[in-house]
């Protein structure tokens, strides 16, 4: 069957964001199986450049970016736009900043 562009929210087990200390936000995409993890990695869709665009962060400022086989997960850590909990805060725990990742589309076998 021909693959169709499928959002990560329909593929991954976990797509989440969270503060990692008061100055960083970390994003996790955890896959259900090693096969799913490998397929997404091999698609080449998830790159530092894509993260840079989605989160408006220059690639050289990305703190962690990687595919980690031991946990079938992509992990991304970025600087926060402002210190956690200060004036102008919109998301104290950075718990709702994952949505742009959910919407990434990867070629996937039709369900």
């Amino acid at each position, binding site marked *: 069957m021909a693959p169709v562009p499928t959002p990560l929210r329909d593929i991954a087990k976990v797509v989440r964001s*969270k*503060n*990692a*200390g*008061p*100055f*960083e936000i*970390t994003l*996790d995409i*955890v896959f259900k199986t090693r096969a799913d993890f490998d397929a997404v990695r091999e698609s080449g869709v998830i790159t530092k450049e894509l993260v840079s665009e*989605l*989160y*408006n962060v220059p690639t050289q*400022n990305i*703190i*962690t970016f*990687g595919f*980690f086989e*031991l*946990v*079938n*997960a992509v*992990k991304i*850590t970025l*600087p*926060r*736009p402002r*210190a*956690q*909990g*200060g*004036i*102008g*805060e*919109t*998301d*104290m*725990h950075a718990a*709702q*900043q994952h*949505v*742009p990742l959910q*919407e990434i589309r990867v070629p996937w076998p039709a369900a």
Partner: protein
Amino acid sequence: MLGYGFPVEHFKMGLALKPHAITIDSGSTDSGPQKLGLGEMTCSREAYVKDIEVLLEAQQATRIPVLISSAGGDGTNLHVDVFRDIVTEIARRRGWHFKVASIYSDIDKSHIARELKAGRIEPLGPVPPLDPREVEAATVVVAQMGAEPFVKALDESPGGVDVILAGRSYDPSPTAAMAIRAGFDPALAWHMGKIMECGALCAEPVGRTVMGWLRHDHFEIEPLNPAERCTTASVAAHTLYEKTHPFLLAGPGGTLDLSQCRYEQVTDRRVRVSGSKFIPSDPYTVKLEGAKTAGWRSIFIAGARDPIFIAQIDAILDEVLANTRAYFADVPPETYRLIPHLYGKNGVMGDLEPVKVPAHELCIILEVAAATQALATAICNKARTSLMHAPYPGRIATAGNIASPFTPLEIPLGQACTFNVYHLMKVDSPTALFPIRHEEI
């Protein structure tokens, strides 16, 4: 987390397994800078009394030590003393006696200034270099202790210690301290501590209480609630949660490297972990944390439903804020801020919001920060009335632009705070910054 409550029946199942210590963390910077900035605690005093009493009762029954870290959430000296008062109060009421060691972690500002001058303080992550004026502005600065102060507290008291009440600590420090003191591999001790300080977050489904068994070349981990299980995947994935890197975890005195770990399923609920490595840093470093107050805030909350208004919301708000600033022309503009939060448009993600079309209704919150509460509220009031009656092209709802759900229409929020110290400081001794007081209660 101490103060959140925990299932006492599962805790008692854990005690029946004859552990060597009860360790509980109560610290976090997660809920923001106001604890350090204003001296507030994460939970109410009553919530701490409730949880601490359960722990002390277990101590009386088993005689194993209770180690509590990061008292009150921020671990300031003030909150170590609040915990000390709580233990004293419970001991008196129940007729119990404890040998208590209190470990303090506030760092003298003049010491920080000297170390900064000597080039021994650097930013931790994406933080500007430490400015001595920020140290002065901070309400209090604490350092995160490692395992060493706990070990010292246990070693130096000939009659033993029943209860340790510690200031700001790296979350796994109390657990790692017990293990390292007993001669176990520090890498396994830190890794097990790292998992256990989050309770049964490493289980499926996620739970509250776990038991750890440390041996010389591995450790095992199992949730106390029989309805939960640890799997190799759930335990391995635990170190993803709210960490910068999945395998490299920096802490006081070194970095835990989990990239070569092995995870084995022992029973359907228990996992064995081996292969953790600890790379000591040279010199030893501790993390400094501090926050300062940053003015007073007031907000208003308003709804908007008119599609003609919503379609022009950015231009209308720009004009309202400009009018408000013009009205307060006598207040220096750099001393106050007006920040709109537009739910239904981009209230959660701000500029990063990928959806550009607003929803059919908006929640408008205007955040005003100024030098006093009265001024913040006055500015907020002016902006709200101006928004209520702002003219805009095509306006046919001429009686009012916004729907106000609450009184007071301007809501005072009190003082705002901001983290302003988050740096690593080199130290000659892992214990010298953390004075210990022993006493019988």
